[in-house]
């Protein structure tokens, strides 16, 4: 816990000690971790495997750009406002798709993301396929922008990672953990599985959208092809499956493992992706708990303790029966 406070403080203080390249990396890494964490919440706990989270990334990104460019809203104020769009999008999406089970739900989310992408590509209002540029950012100096970006990234991590932690420690966390292990028996124990799933889906859409808004704010440019890129789904799956599904630590470890090699090896392009694909395949078959699962089976020292232990009353306190 104290480690995360140090990391967050260091992140927010970055404009005063790190150069721009490092800041850009830190912002991107925060977005990856946030998106993966949200996917982990969906797939790892709620049993909702989605390959269409890019719908919310693109939607929030576009909402931000429209608010700034067309309505002249202050870009930093526009970030929270932009999150209304993924929230509104996630409700009908869930209501349409919740009947589909397992893998069919997954491809259903993909169809929704493709439909939203094609809709955006056909809208002249948002410059169709050519995309938008965030020109208003030019009025701020680089240093000001960097402070804002690291602040936003800090809030993003606090909301997504801290929020997941808080959620799992709360009363609902017990229900979510029960649902992860077995949704049917969780339902029979009084967990309202469908309502909890709906809540997690909307929350994950907002969290994912938040990361998307920040990511494209840092990029200063969005196009339908990049904002709604299925690549986002691949990234979250890689990160969570390699790091370890169903744990907060897994998404963070996976994020670090994915991010740094990606910077160095992405020049090998396709062959690097072949390796990542095979690694995911291997993990899915032989090591479902991912790297964190392997660590946790040997050392019981979680960074984010969300597990619950059965505390048996001591012998003396036991009531005679």
């Amino acid at each position: 816990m104290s480690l995360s406070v140090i990391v967050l403080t260091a992140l927010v203080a970055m404009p005063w000690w790190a150069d721009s390249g490092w800041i850009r990396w830190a912002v991107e890494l925060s977005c990856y971790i946030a998106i993966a964490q949200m996917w982990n919440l969906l797939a790892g706990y709620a049993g909702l495997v989605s390959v269409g989270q890019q719908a919310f990334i693109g939607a929030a990104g576009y909402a931000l750009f429209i608010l700034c460019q067309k309505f002249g809203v202050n870009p930093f104020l526009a970030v929270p406002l932009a999150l209304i769009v993924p929230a509104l999008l996630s409700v009908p999406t869930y209501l349409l798709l919740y009947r589909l089970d397992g893998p069919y739900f997954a491809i259903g989310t993909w169809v929704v993301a493709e439909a939203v992408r094609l809709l955006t590509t056909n809208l002249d209002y948002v410059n169709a396929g050519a995309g938008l540029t965030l020109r208003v950012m030019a009025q701020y100096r680089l240093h000001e922008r960097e402070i804002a970006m690291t602040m936003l990234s800090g809030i993003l991590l606090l909301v997504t990672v801290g929020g997941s932690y808080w959620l799992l420690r709360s009363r609902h966390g017990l229900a979510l953990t029960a649902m992860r292990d077995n949704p049917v028996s969780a339902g029979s124990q009084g967990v309202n599985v469908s309502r909890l799933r709906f809540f997690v889906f909307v929350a994950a859409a907002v969290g994912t959208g938040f990361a998307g808004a920040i990511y494209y704010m840092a990029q200063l440019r969005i196009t339908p092809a990049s904002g709604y890129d299925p690549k986002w789904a691949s990234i979250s799956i890689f990160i969570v499956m390699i790091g370890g599904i169903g744990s907060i630590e897994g998404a963070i470890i996976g994020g670090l493992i994915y991010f740094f090699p990606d910077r160095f090896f992405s020049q090998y392009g396709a062959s690097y992706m072949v390796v990542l694909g095979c690694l995911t395949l291997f993990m899915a078959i032989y090591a479902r708990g991912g790297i964190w699962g392997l660590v946790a089976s040997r050392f019981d020292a979680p960074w984010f303790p969300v597990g619950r232990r059965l505390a048996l009353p001591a012998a003396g306190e036991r009531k005679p029966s």
Partner: protein
Amino acid sequence: MQWLDALVQGVLLGGMYAQYALGMALMFGVMRIVNIAHGDLMILLALTGISLATAFSLGTMSLIAVLVPLAALLGWTLQRGILNKAVGEDPLPSLIATFGLSIAVQNLMLQIWSADTRSLRGGGLESASIDVGGVYVGVLPVIVLVTAIALTAGLDFIVRATRFGRGLRAAAADTEAAAVTGVDPKSIYAVSTAIAVAILGIAAVFQSLRATVSPADGPAQLIYAFEAVIIGGMGSLWGAFVGSMVLGVAQAIGFRIDPGWGILFGHLVFLAALAIRPEGVMKRG
């Protein structure tokens, strides 16, 4: 006339989609597996077919004769090597495993064949058409549609009436009970995946004759197959066929309204079908 033409072209396009959807309907009906690499396997077979045809100057029929056994072998290996290890109550491992496979296959193809689009020459067959009362109907799309009908009928017969089909339905209904009564689910699974991928081999040849293929095309084909299966009703073979027709017609009409809207219109019809009739058009009740 314009709309009649769209309808006819849509049905013909649906014939192509039915060929992708059939294998998916079979795999889902039996193993409840959605193979995310479905479309990528088809593209892999198509590119392999194009390379084989160029290297050995094969005609269309001899290419099908070579490619289909190859596809069946690929499907069998896939099931034996990967999917049998991932199948279970929890659909997540097989989903993630085939997702990883899809990424790997896509990028491998990019390495081997580069991002260029390719197609197969069919000796004039691909551009031949006949005039039916003012609507031009391509000869090749008609062959595709007839093949799709024949494949659906043949597969439906196998599932309904043969010993293998009985074992397959038993394994689908209750894997463990089937195993107790002497059916080997793993080998049933391997054979049905082999059949599913073999059908993709035929689809691959027609796809590369009809249009162009490039390594990144797989996911789109997966989505079309998936939409057809859901519109028709999960696990029903004729349902998948009808779903393909609905999807093909929706796309063809969309393309007539605005070229940018064709694919989107297909997606919207799918979502509408999901909202109105989630159990699929072929399910009774």
